[in-house]
């Protein structure tokens, strides 16, 4: 648990440091995520990744990702501070979120379907 948390926070710190040093346009946690993904991919390239360390990391990461919704609540509540804006611009907000979500969803699925899903994968085969 502690080691897993230390890995996540350590990579976040590393990401923030790199962002500041290199003036990257990416948020620090995103830089940290990319670094950690690269390290995990490199480590599992040679051998299957089942060490004690990766087990600890998996547990903390799984816990955080499972309850990620809770972590959005404090920022989302900030909407109460934006009520005048919501009242004033509800139409562009609603139209924008509805339209762009559906367009993005259909585009993504249609392109993936037409480029590489000509041969559907059976579910049994996928597991």
């Amino acid at each position, binding site marked *: 648990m502690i080691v897993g948390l230390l890995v996540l926070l350590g990579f976040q710190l590393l990401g923030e440091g790199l962002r500041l040093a290199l003036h990257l346009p990416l948020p620090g946690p995103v830089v940290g995520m990319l670094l950690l993904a690269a390290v995990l991919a490199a480590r*599992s390239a040679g051998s299957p990744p089942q060490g004690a360390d990766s087990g600890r990391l998996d547990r903390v990461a799984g816990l955080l990702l499972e309850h990620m919704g809770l972590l959005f*609540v404090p*920022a989302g509540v900030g909407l109460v501070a934006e009520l005048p804006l919501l009242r004033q611009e509800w139409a562009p*907000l609603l139209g*924008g979120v509805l339209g*762009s979500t559906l367009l993005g969803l259909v585009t993504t699925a249609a392109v993936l379907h037409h*480029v590489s899903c000509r041969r*559907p994968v059976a579910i049994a085969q996928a597991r």
Partner: protein
Amino acid sequence: MMPDRLVAALWAPLAAAPLLWIVVTLGAYAGGRRLQARLGGSPLVNPVLVAMLLVGGLLLATGAPYATYFRGAQLINFLLGPATVALAVPLARNLHHVRRSLGGVGAALLAGSTVSLLSGVALVRALGGSRGVALSMAPKSATTPIAMSLSQEIGGLPALTAALAIIGGVIAAIVGQRLLLRLRIEDHRAHGFAAGVAGSGVAAAQVASLSGLAAAFAALGIALNGVLTALLVPLVSLLWR
């Protein structure tokens, strides 16, 4: 009148410290989860949405300023950082899926992410929205922690972006599967990946019940779209002055 005065005497010191707000946030989220479970897991009663409404309503009813609430709740907010880094775990685990269908995944990601970003900005402008709202809309299809920090960076309103990301996810979760089936797209890879790219965590949780393959492609879509959006959004704000 005794209970009123007791509540008033307790409220002021408790409202000033983090504990009350952490309990309120956790309680509202737990309440949202229970409500969703009781209503058969319907995506309409998203626990994040329910918790936002409950806590927001409490703030409005008591007149407690958002800044006071956030001073307490930022301990929860802080965990968004490590949670974003944690996305590396499913990303690394599903890397072999990317290698196997590299062309399709890359093309779908690029097309879907760009369409959702640009159409969001264009729709807001076309419907008479301000620049601040358009900039808050731009990063909303990225997973919420990434979307929020991007919004902050380009001059949007992070709270608005967070709410839009969640609401977009709820929309994708409610209509996504039916819409794609109507278009005769049945492959679980396409369903999962589209949910991850366009609807982030909320829609991904919904589509994960289809199959393990859909869940893996949803996780992949979240992680890859987070990265691509993080690269595209600063570009949009640079080009659009």
